[in-house]
């Protein structure tokens, strides 16, 4: 098992290098000069040049990238061009909030998605199935920002039950919990929809297997057949998708965070991209890529734990 983990961890290194290089190149290829943006609209050419030198942007591209890698190896993500703050500090201040939002959304989407998927699968072509399909389609098609505004109107404006935006505090406080509900729903709805569709189709397939027929013929209760014998196997592909969705939730949080003024990485990344703050974007991309790689590693391990065939291979 350990050998498996170490092998997977080493395989992650080229992925992270590739991700950082991609982030670096995309930013460099995008038009726009960070030195000009830092200098401001009213700065003279001399000032812009001075700032460019100070930021090290006058050096050749490969030198800039190698210096970045060198710093990363030493645990330093550099300094933000925009604020001058250590990128590590910028990310540390915001990453936990994005993670808590992503995890809350994931919990919500897995719970709702699996329940809706199971209901639809055990009663195919009934009103439950059609209802779940309709809700799932709506969930996938609704833009996050629009859903966010609708939730805000309903729960904050008309009902006055929840705060409109912002993070109310730690999640173990009532204010904190109340503040994460709407962003978690807005962010998690498309994932819940995808998980419900996948659970439905996967469970329907499992329910047609011979061993399920055997279980039923033994006289087991339908609840036991579905939840104990079928769902476990049906959830194997769902686990992969859940892992991938966490990555999508980290990315999707950008819009949700803007709408709900959630103080996470999304807002940081958007501002950093528009101000061509290379070190912050690179640092943030590296952190997100690392999380993504770790989640995939975790998914592989869970997969191996759930399905013995993978271990034997």
């Amino acid at each position: 098992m350990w050998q498996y983990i170490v092998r997977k961890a080493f395989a992650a290194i080229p992925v992270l290098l590739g991700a950082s290089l991609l982030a670096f190149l995309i930013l460099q290829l995008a038009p726009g000069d960070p030195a000009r943006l830092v200098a401001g609209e009213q700065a003279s050419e001399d000032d812009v040049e001075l700032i460019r030198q100070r930021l090290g942007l006058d050096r050749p591209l490969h030198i800039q990238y190698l210096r970045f890698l060198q710093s990363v190896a030493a645990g330093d993500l550099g300094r933000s061009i925009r604020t001058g703050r250590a990128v590590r500090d910028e990310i540390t201040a915001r990453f936990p909030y994005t993670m808590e939002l992503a995890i809350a959304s994931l919990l919500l989407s897995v719970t709702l998605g699996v329940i809706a998927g199971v209901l639809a699968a055990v009663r195919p072509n009934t009103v439950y199935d059609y209802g779940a399909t309709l809700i799932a389609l709506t969930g996938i098609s609704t833009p996050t920002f629009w859903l966010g505004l609708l939730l805000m109107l309903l729960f904050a404006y008309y009902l006055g039950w929840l705060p409109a935006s912002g993070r109310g505090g730690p999640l173990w406080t009532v204010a904190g919990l109340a503040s994460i509900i709407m962003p978690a729903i807005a962010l998690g709805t498309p994932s819940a929809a995808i998980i419900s569709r996948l659970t439905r189709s996967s469970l329907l397939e499992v329910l047609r297997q011979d061993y399920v027929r055997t279980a039923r013929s033994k006289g087991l209760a339908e609840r036991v057949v579905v939840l104990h014998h079928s769902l476990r196997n049906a959830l194997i592909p769902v686990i992969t998708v859940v892992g991938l969705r966490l990555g999508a939730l980290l990315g999707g949080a950008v819009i949700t965070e803007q709408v709900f003024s959630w103080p996470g990485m999304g807002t940081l990344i958007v501002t950093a991209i528009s101000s061509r703050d290379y070190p912050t974007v690179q640092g943030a991309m590296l952190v997100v890529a690392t999380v993504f790689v770790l989640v995939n590693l975790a998914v592989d391990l869970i997969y191996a734990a759930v399905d013995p065939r993978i271990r034997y291979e």
Partner: protein
Amino acid sequence: MQPRRLATLLLCVALVSSGGVAMSAPAAGQELVIANEADLTVLDPIRIQEAPTSFVAGLVYEQLVRRTHEGKIAPSLAERWKISPDRRTWTFTLRKGVKFHDGSEFDASVVEWHFKRALDPREGSVFRGQFSVIEKITVLDPYTIAFTLTAPNVAFLDFVMLTNGAFIPSRRAFETLGAEFPFKAVGTGPFRWGQWVQGQRVVLERNPAYWGTQPKLERLVIRPILDANTGVVELETGGVHYLMRANRDDITRLEKDPRFVVYRVPTYRARFIELNVSRPPFNDLKVRQAVNHALNVPEIINALASGMAAPVDTILPVKSPFHPAPGTYTTYPFNPERARALLAEAGWQRSAGGLRKGDQTLRVTLHSPNGRYFADKEISEVICNRLQTLGIECRVRVMDWSAFLDDVRSGRFEAAFLGWNQSSGEPSLFFDALVATGGRGNYAKYSDPALDQVLKEGLIAFSEGRRKLLYARATDIVNRNAWYVPLSNELKIAITSSRVQGYVHSAPLTDFVPVWMK
């Protein structure tokens, strides 16, 4: 009986009067929650350039002088000042007994340290270029400091002393906070730094040792709310009390709601189309004049930005005290026939494929940012559409701000939707930057020796009357050359809860000292 009656009467009077006081005066512990457009970046004055950070900095730091609601320059950390007869030396007498929020003394040595730091190329000051008009700083005594300029400049206060870079921070804070200095504002202002939770809120507390009038509010809470719709919902649900932006429809709706008060006032934010005279087709005066005549600017602005911007016909904001009277400068009233005639005079003939001169077709690309200025993209699209009716092949190139800035600053544009914001209507802040030869915002490389001479005189003329004359002439020269299509002046907007009392809305100043909550 008599004394008892008197006592009862006195008690009643006392109760009523105390009740009256309680009704009109603010209760203790009051806080005002303000929605800011973004989180703060850096609070080191010499690096502040974004409006959201500048807004907060202006509540904590102070400058030697300040603007009043009427736009006049008034004493602040300097009690008075004088200009030498050669107009090159400005001597400030500083206020005594002023302390920074960390308890350190405010005196001439701090002012000297701050401005020398702003001029030091190693410090990363974004004001170095602008402040390079300062040749020498001399401390005459602990409360008197003189600035000698490289050339006479009667607009020195506007040009230097009223910028973000002129906010005076505590030197002790700089020396003790080290790397944390840019993230904590320690000034002398009516509010002192409380707390900054990144992405969530900034808390400013009342400064009990403030030298001026004490703020009525105990605390200001400034929340970054990036989405305009979210800001409106927050205002309506009581999450914030003061909002600086909203969509046009929301503003119209809130205006009718007695729970809110909407304030608007024209500001010194000029919006215009800059025509690049350095390359065809706008190197031809007649084409520039034709474009000016072809556009019904008031109609376009009123249709797309009414209530958010006011149409204008000069690059100098109409609120400037130096704005010339209508009729005293060249303008281009909407006249498509005249536009067509001018294009024909310039040699552009109508044909099936548009306007042609020999084998050339009259093509224009209009660079536009998206969301940087109010309705910038939409206004650009309508402008292009109008130019097409004239036969000009016009295309809008909507760009991300940094890419847009790159193209415009390098002169890679034919026409561009641009803006120029200043905190006052001092005309040299507009003309010297936008149209003087080599000006900071003169991206199209306009150059007219006669205009340069007028602008030079404008900087040394003491008399307001003389300056008015000079800038009226400058306005006319710019318009006669049709270098720009002036569009609008954006309005400064504030929407407050009707509980917010004592607030005065004006272009030059945002002051929360007299504000309290009902």
